[in-house]
């Protein structure tokens, strides 16, 4: 058992007391007195004069164990749960992209295929297409906003929803107008074309309904992997 502390221990004690003195504005005498107390305490532990209390022992045990939370996380049963293929956020992003692509490409394409060429002033087809693009712009803004939104935040979900819901109404109205525009020459349309428009409408509505469903049911954030970092490395 040491009769005196070594220089390394004394240096650490001096650092502690200097820091205390600086923080609390202690005089040199007071700092020296407190430093002496710490030295006495350390020596008493080393010599076995002071018995370690339960609280001291717990502190030591915990300090020596290391990162308790980190280890607990690694040995937790959660590590054995299968990793979800897609996180909720990824699902929303992918659904949003698929929905956006389908509406932006297929819908105008269908209208062009079955619409009249423009004649004179504003053609109903042009009006319908403009309304559709405006609606789609708002709609996809909402969808993409939702995809980036913090799903735990009701306010952010509400904002995203405020983009989506009215845009859906605009989209439905525009589709009705578009069908009306092409129906003047419906004789040129085939059953296949009509089925294509109907299919596009259904796909759009289904995709956005799915997004609304995802947004309206907040679940625990699963974007954080439950696989320990060491396993991922």
């Amino acid at each position, binding site marked *: 058992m040491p009769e005196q502390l070594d220089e390394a221990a004394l240096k650490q004690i001096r650092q502690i007391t200097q820091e205390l003195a600086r923080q609390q504005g202690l005089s040199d005498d*007071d700092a*020296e*007195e*407190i430093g*002496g*107390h710490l030295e*006495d*305490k350390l020596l*008493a532990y080393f010599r076995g004069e002071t018995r370690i209390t339960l609280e001291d022992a717990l502190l030591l045990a915990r300090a020596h164990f290391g990162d308790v939370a980190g280890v607990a996380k690694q040995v937790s049963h959660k590590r054995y749960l299968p990793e979800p293929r897609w996180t909720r956020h990824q699902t929303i992003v992918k659904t949003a992209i698929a929905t956006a692509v389908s509406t932006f490409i297929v819908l105008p394409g269908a209208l062009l295929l079955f619409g009249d060429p423009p004649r004179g002033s504003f053609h109903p087809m042009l009006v319908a297409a403009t309304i559709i693009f405006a609606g789609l712009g708002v709609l996809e803004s909402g969808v993409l906003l939702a995809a980036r939104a913090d799903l735990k935040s009701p306010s952010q979900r509400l904002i995203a929803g405020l983009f989506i819901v009215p845009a859906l109404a605009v989209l439905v109205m525009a589709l009705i107008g578009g069908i009306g525009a092409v129906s003047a020459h419906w004789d040129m349309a085939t059953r296949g074309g009509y089925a294509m428009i109907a299919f596009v409408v259904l796909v759009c509505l289904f995709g956005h309904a799915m997004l609304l469903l995802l947004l309206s049911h907040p679940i625990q954030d699963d974007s954080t992997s439950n696989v320990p970092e060491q396993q991922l490395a």
Partner: protein
Amino acid sequence: MNWASKELVGASTAMLVLGVLKQGASYGYDIVRQINEQAEGAFTWQEGTIYPILHKLEKKGLVQCRWQESPTGRRRKYYSLTVEGRAALRDGVRQWELFDQLMIRLAGVNHA
């Protein structure tokens, strides 16, 4: 297991310190060690709290201090009772005795 309430210990800190110093001059760490040892688990002082008490007693003139070099060469601040401190301790002990008697009479404390 500590059984003495904080209030009770808090009201008696100065007396406890003066009582220890009655035995002879001592320094902060040793004063706390003696008190905790004598308390036998009734309470455990947080060691740092001794210094504000000692400095307060010093301001009141009940204790005096001097720096003294230990055999290992380290300086220690030793505290000892002044005449006023001895008188205050006597007065405090008397008050405790009277209070003890009062407790026996009023609260039915039985030492037997």
